[in-house]
């Protein structure tokens, strides 16, 4: 036991040292304006400056505005995608005819990357807010839809037969068997969708935004406040990771039978 415990600590120290070495390498490369020809650190600010910028941003009133703008867009776009994706997925997965009606147009749109929608979205939506929300929506929709269809199609047919035998109507079986049976797959889709949603939002904000963390990052480049670029990148990463974690936690809460400890 004791030696295991020690080994655990040693591993954590090793990991911390690994990060410290990377930061140190970055610091050295930036301070000495390292230029390897194909990649250059001349304009890359060192970690110390990034830290200062982060502290500045945390103290400025604008930062909250940037973060809430981005969070609101993702929240709206993702929620619409989640509701629509799960409903469509249930319909398509359960009924062959509904699948034949609904799936072909969706399959045509699916290969188009969400980011490629940006110019058209700007033309289609009168407000830039609307176009950005649309981009986050379209980015999240397909992972959620496809995972839901997959989940529904892989519900054990014996469970559905049993539910029928016990007197379940079509709708009751959908609610009591298909939905919970597909729930783990649906949550996987939601987590993936959340990731793509952030990815799409940041790109959309860079092009057509006012406020928002993606906009802030791009603006920092335009006005040459380079440390802020890296602060923006870090904030995007933290927000994306945080919302995915939140979602995974929610999934664990709603599908208690699926977790390992009830085994």
């Amino acid at each position: 036991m004791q030696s295991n415990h020690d080994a655990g600590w040693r591993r954590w120290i090793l990991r911390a040292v690994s990060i410290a070495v990377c930061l140190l390498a970055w610091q050295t490369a930036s301070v000495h304006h390292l230029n390897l020809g194909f990649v250059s650190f001349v304009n890359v600010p060192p970690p110390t400056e990034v830290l200062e910028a982060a502290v500045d941003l945390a103290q400025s009133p604008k930062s909250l505005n940037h973060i809430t703008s981005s969070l609101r867009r993702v929240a709206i776009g993702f929620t619409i995608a989640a509701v629509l994706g799960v409903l469509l997925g249930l319909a398509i997965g359960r009924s062959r005819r509904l699948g034949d009606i609904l799936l072909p147009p969706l399959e045509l749109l699916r290969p188009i990357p969400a980011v490629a929608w940006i110019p058209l979205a700007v033309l289609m939506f009168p407000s830039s807010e609307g176009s950005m929300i649309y981009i986050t929506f379209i980015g999240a929709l397909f992972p959620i839809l496809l995972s839901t269809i997959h989940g529904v199609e892989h519900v054990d047919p014996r469970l559905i037969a049993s539910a029928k035998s016990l007197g379940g109507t079509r709708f009751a079986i959908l609610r009591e068997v298909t939905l919970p049976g597909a729930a783990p797959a649906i949550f996987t889709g939601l987590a993936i969708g959340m990731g793509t949603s952030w990815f799409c939002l940041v790109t959309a904000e860079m092009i057509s935004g006012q406020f928002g963390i993606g906009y802030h990052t791009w603006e920092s480049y335009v006005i040459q406040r380079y440390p802020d670029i890296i602060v923006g990148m870090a904030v995007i990463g933290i927000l994306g990771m945080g919302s995915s974690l939140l979602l995974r936690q929610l999934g664990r809460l709603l599908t208690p039978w699926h977790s390992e400890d009830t085994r």
Partner: protein
Amino acid sequence: MSGQERIAFSDTGRIDAHNVAIRLGRGEKAFEAISDVTLSIKPGEFVCLIGPSGCGKSTLLGALAGHIGVAHGELKVDGDNVKGPHPERGIVFQHHTLFPWKSVLNNVAFGPKMRGIGRKERHRRAKEILELVGLQDFIHRYPKQLSGGMQQRVEIARVLVNRPRLLLMDEPFGALDALTRMHMQELLLDLWSRVRTTIIFVTHDIDEALFLADRVLVMSHRPGRILEEIKVPFARPRSAEVSVTPEFGALKHHCMSLLHTRTVSPLRRLEPLGLENIEA
């Protein structure tokens, strides 16, 4: 009140099959799983179906449950043609089909819930039946937190709570270890003495069939037909000792000779849900 209920029960659950044939599969791969089965089973009777693997005994069970359609002939329960699944014809599979996301209590309460019975009342009924199968202390567990024998007991309770006319069982104890299987057989007979219903029990275990049944129907190799019916004369309530009597040995020997003389290459096991449902 309960006495009246008991009588009402023993009046239902009559099965009449007349020249029943069942085809499985589609197109060129279609084959006849059951051919020309005629039988009649009295209300409240315990009948075991035995036969070689793939002979169609599970298919016949699936047809009684309403999961598989009949190609020719008539299949009637209490005078009405079987049309689709119904809670009055409950089926128990070899591997449990409990809902993993529902507690034991809510699994058993599922049937009453589908009939629109309120939460309090359906939980009361579920607890009552769970007590009969000895699981009153496990009602809040999830199915995967139970042993295999306990899972099958929940499965049986979930069907019995609907007060079915027929209890259809497809090798329900086939996946259990020998000791658990013996306990389950005794439990089933005990249950059947309290909750009278017609039981059709599919097995390939001759000992099991002779221990449980009033009557054993021996089926032929595919396409399945009824080769012979054997009345099992042992008095009830039965205990495990009955299986070491000479009469038991003689009946077992007879069953074995019926099954062995017909042995051809073993076929794939058929499921009571037919082919499409399983392979989809």
